[in-house]
């Protein structure tokens, strides 16, 4: 701040600052400040922010403002002040000093605009970062100069307002009362922002239509900004201005735009609808809950039906539960007095599914040859036979319950399909003492296929028995590996006593054996077994209750099986098949005469059905010959072999 004469000049004090500098700093500054305050400047420098127009002194011609819009050109405007004689155009001339070198001189304004009292400096005359000083001179070389009228161009830049100001709705609040808008614009075209010549930041201001105060948003250099929290229904006025970054002078405001968002009517429509829906759904839910609660039990029945418990007629279901095998064995074997009721006589009545295998005496021989065995019937009847066929002795006392604890290893086929409470018949005639399990399989499997299982459990008594002149049983003489059971016609049965049984049986057969009836017929004749209740004279079975002839329909329930000889399964299958609704295991009840079993070592025969409909197997072998079945008046079984109850008969008796 050294002036040309070495003395720093201040327009306010008109004193040499150099002289002032001799004072100590602590005294100087307050003095200086106080001295400066009550001095007024004759001319107000346009760069000053303070308003010095307080004095009544004559206002000499001065510059009102110098502005650059693009940092490449600038304009200066002057005013004659109170010197009205100088107000005519041309009375005052503008001179400027560009302090770019110590030898610079005052030059005249390159371009006048007298109508506006403006001096325009174009690109060629404009230099940035170099101080300019402006001076007014009258015609008679009176200089009106204010040192404060010196500036550098970048400090007088006021950019043009931004252009293309518009807004878009961003979102509306859920309450429908306020919304946000995004305002965007473009940089003023005069400002070369793209090249980086000017760095501009923007300021948005908005207010409600009739308000007086503007809300200013934060300045930022982007060309868009969000206004939050405007109210629906009110009209807003928005305008924008900009300035160079890190500078102080703002440009002018742009033209205002108006923002207004009216209420959207459809919101009113949807809200009650939504409410109605919600309430309706809630009400329906409550109603459903009430219904469910009131009908709880029925729903429980539907959703979780009770699982049928295992049941054997005559046997307490409790015993069938796990862990009570011994007791059940005991009962079924006829140990207890509360054993199986003697329903033997009744079992064969009207049971279509009861089938008896009838074996003709003629075919017995042929069968014998085929089987290459001794006559099974003879064996049954106690004729001397090799005691080799005790294959199922191991099963004699075993009731093969489908129980894990049972002695399944020997008598039970673990591969049997799972049937509820499947009681499997373990009848294996020891014709071929080979494959206990195989024969068991057959026996057990046979019932399964078509109609569920009517497993017949037969306990075998010890000792083979031979039947004289009769073939009561369908003797499983051989079991094929494929599961087919080979029945041999065996000995003759007392067929004449078991006609009724045949009739029923044939009826059933007609249903069942559609396919291979012809062959079946033949074989039926051949293998006409009758399960008869045989008088135990010499044998332990009475034949009074020869209810049915069990024909031997070749039609096995498993057509695919390879039955080579006489299809034996009917004994097992047919009866089993027709037992539809009684999944409980069946044990052919033996006649009450326990000693029936004595001659029939090959079969496990159900001796009795006790009062609880449980089957007694393995009756004591040396009992007195049981009375003939007809002695059991309640149920007169026609020609039923003592030891057998066919499943359908049993089903008849079940409650």
């Amino acid at each position, binding site marked *: 701040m050294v002036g040309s004469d070495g003395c720093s000049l201040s327009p306010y004090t008109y004193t040499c600052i150099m002289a002032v500098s001799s004072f100590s700093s602590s005294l100087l500054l307050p003095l200086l400040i106080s001295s400066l305050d009550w001095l007024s400047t004759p001319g107000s420098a346009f760069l000053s922010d303070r308003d010095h127009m307080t004095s009544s002194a004559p206002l000499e011609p001065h510059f009102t403002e110098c502005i650059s819009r693009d940092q*490449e050109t600038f304009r200066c405007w002057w005013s004659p002040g109170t010197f009205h004689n100088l107000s005519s155009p041309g009375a005052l001339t503008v001179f400027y000093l560009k302090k770019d070198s110590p030898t610079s001189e005052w030059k005249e304004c390159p371009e006048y605009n007298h109508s506006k009292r403006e001096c325009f400096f174009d690109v*060629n005359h404009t230099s940035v970062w170099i101080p300019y000083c402006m001076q007014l001179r009258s015609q008679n070389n009176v200089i009106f100069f204010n040192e404060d009228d*010196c500036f550098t161009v970048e400090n007088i830049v006021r950019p043009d307002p931004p252009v293309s100001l518009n807004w878009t709705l961003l979102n509306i609040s859920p309450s429908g009362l306020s919304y946000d808008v995004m305002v965007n614009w473009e940089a003023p075209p005069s400002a070369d922002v*793209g090249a980086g010549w000017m760095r501009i930041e923007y300021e948005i201001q908005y207010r409600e239509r009739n308000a007086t105060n503007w809300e200013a948003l934060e300045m930022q250099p982007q060309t868009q900004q969000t206004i939050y929290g405007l109210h629906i229904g009110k009209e807003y006025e928005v305008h924008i201005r900009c300035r160079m970054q890190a500078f102080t002078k703002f440009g002018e405001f742009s033209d205002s735009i108006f923002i207004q968002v009216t209420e959207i009517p459809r919101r009113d429509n949807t809200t009650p609808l939504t409410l109605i829906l919600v309430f309706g759904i809630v009400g329906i839910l409550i109603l459903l809950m009430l219904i469910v609660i009131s009908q709880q039990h029925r729903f429980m029945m539907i959703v979780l039906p009770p699982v049928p418990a295992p049941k054997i007629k005559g046997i307490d279901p409790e015993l069938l539960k796990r862990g009570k095998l011994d007791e059940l064995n005991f009962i079924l074997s006829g140990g207890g007095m509360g054993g199986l009721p003697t329903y033997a006589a009744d079992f064969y009545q009207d049971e279509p599914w009861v089938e008896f295998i009838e074996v003709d005496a003629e075919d017995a021989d042929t069968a014998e040859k085929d089987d290459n065995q001794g006559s099974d019937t003879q064996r049954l009847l106690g004729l001397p036979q090799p005691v080799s066929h005790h294959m199922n002795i191991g099963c004699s006392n075993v009731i093969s319950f489908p129980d894990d604890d049972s002695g399944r290893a020997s008598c039970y086929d673990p591969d049997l399909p799972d049937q509820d409470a499947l009681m499997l018949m373990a009848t294996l005639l020891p014709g071929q003492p080979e494959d206990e399990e195989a024969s068991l399989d057959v026996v057990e499997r046979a019932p399964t296929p078509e109609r569920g299982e009517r497993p017949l459990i037969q306990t075998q008594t010890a000792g083979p028995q031979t039947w004289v002149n009769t073939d009561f049983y369908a003797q499983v003489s051989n079991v094929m590996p494929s599961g087919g059971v080979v029945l041999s016609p065996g000995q003759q049965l007392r067929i004449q006593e078991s006609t009724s049984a045949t009739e029923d049986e044939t009826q059933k057969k007609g249903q069942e054996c559609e396919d291979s009836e012809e062959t079946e017929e033949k074989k039926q004749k051949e293998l006409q077994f009758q399960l008869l209740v045989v008088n135990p004279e010499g044998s332990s079975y009475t034949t009074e209750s020869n209810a049915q002839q069990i024909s031997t329909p070749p039609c096995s329930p498993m057509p695919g099986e390879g039955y080579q000889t006489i299809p034996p399964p009917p004994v097992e299958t047919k009866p089993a098949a027709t037992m539809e609704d009684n999944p409980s295991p069946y044990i052919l009840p033996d006649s009450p005469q326990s000693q029936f079993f004595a001659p029939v070592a090959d079969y496990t025969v159900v001796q009795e059905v006790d009062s609880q409909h449980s089957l007694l197997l393995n009756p004591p072998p040396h009992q007195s010959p049981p009375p003939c079945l007809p002695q059991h008046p309640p149920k007169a079984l026609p020609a039923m072999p003592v030891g057998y109850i066919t499943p359908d008969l049993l089903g008849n008796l079940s409650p």
Partner: protein
Amino acid sequence: MHMMTVKQRGVWAVLLWPCLLTMSVPLDCKEEQGSLSRCLSISQEKLLDRVIQHAELIYRVSEESCTLFEEMFIPFPLRLQRNQASYTCITKALPLPSSKSEIQQISDKWLLHSVLMLVQSWIEPLVYLQTTLDRYDDAPDLLLNKTKWVSDKLISLEQGVVVLIKKMLDEGALTTTYSEQGLFQYDVQPEMLESVMRDYTLLTCFKKDAHKMETFLKLLKCRQTDKYNCA
């Protein structure tokens, strides 16, 4: 005043974060053959961006320092002296372009050299400014921190420009040749007011030159990226 101080503190805090960025990656990597260079080499565009960023920040902080100083030490009537004081800036003798058209006419090389000249000529005065400011009784810490920051950043700006020159112009490293020592007589202890005014002048001059640097670099960048748009 309090609001301004708070605002400035906030801006100060915001401005300081780029320091981490700039300090984490060295600008210059010495590519010596056979030696492990631990630093990552930076691309030219990124380097130029970073240099511009430096310059922008330096200008902003210098402007704030100037304003702070002015409010603190300069009586209001004397504040307008800054415009006139620019004539006595230390860099007035430097042959620098002063208009957009002039800048567009000079070459990249000269532009970079101009920037380098400016930077190098201000390093020492800023250090001097620190010492004088410390002598003031009531200089606010904010002002001291800002000026300190600026002087530090200026040094890294110089490094950046040197590397840029090396990369863009394939020239060797330049030494400091433009420092003007004669302007400051350190032996004479200036009086308070003179010192104040001198510092004020210094700050305003530096502010102007920082703006110059920033503009030079930006125009250079425009030239580098899109020659057709930088009319």
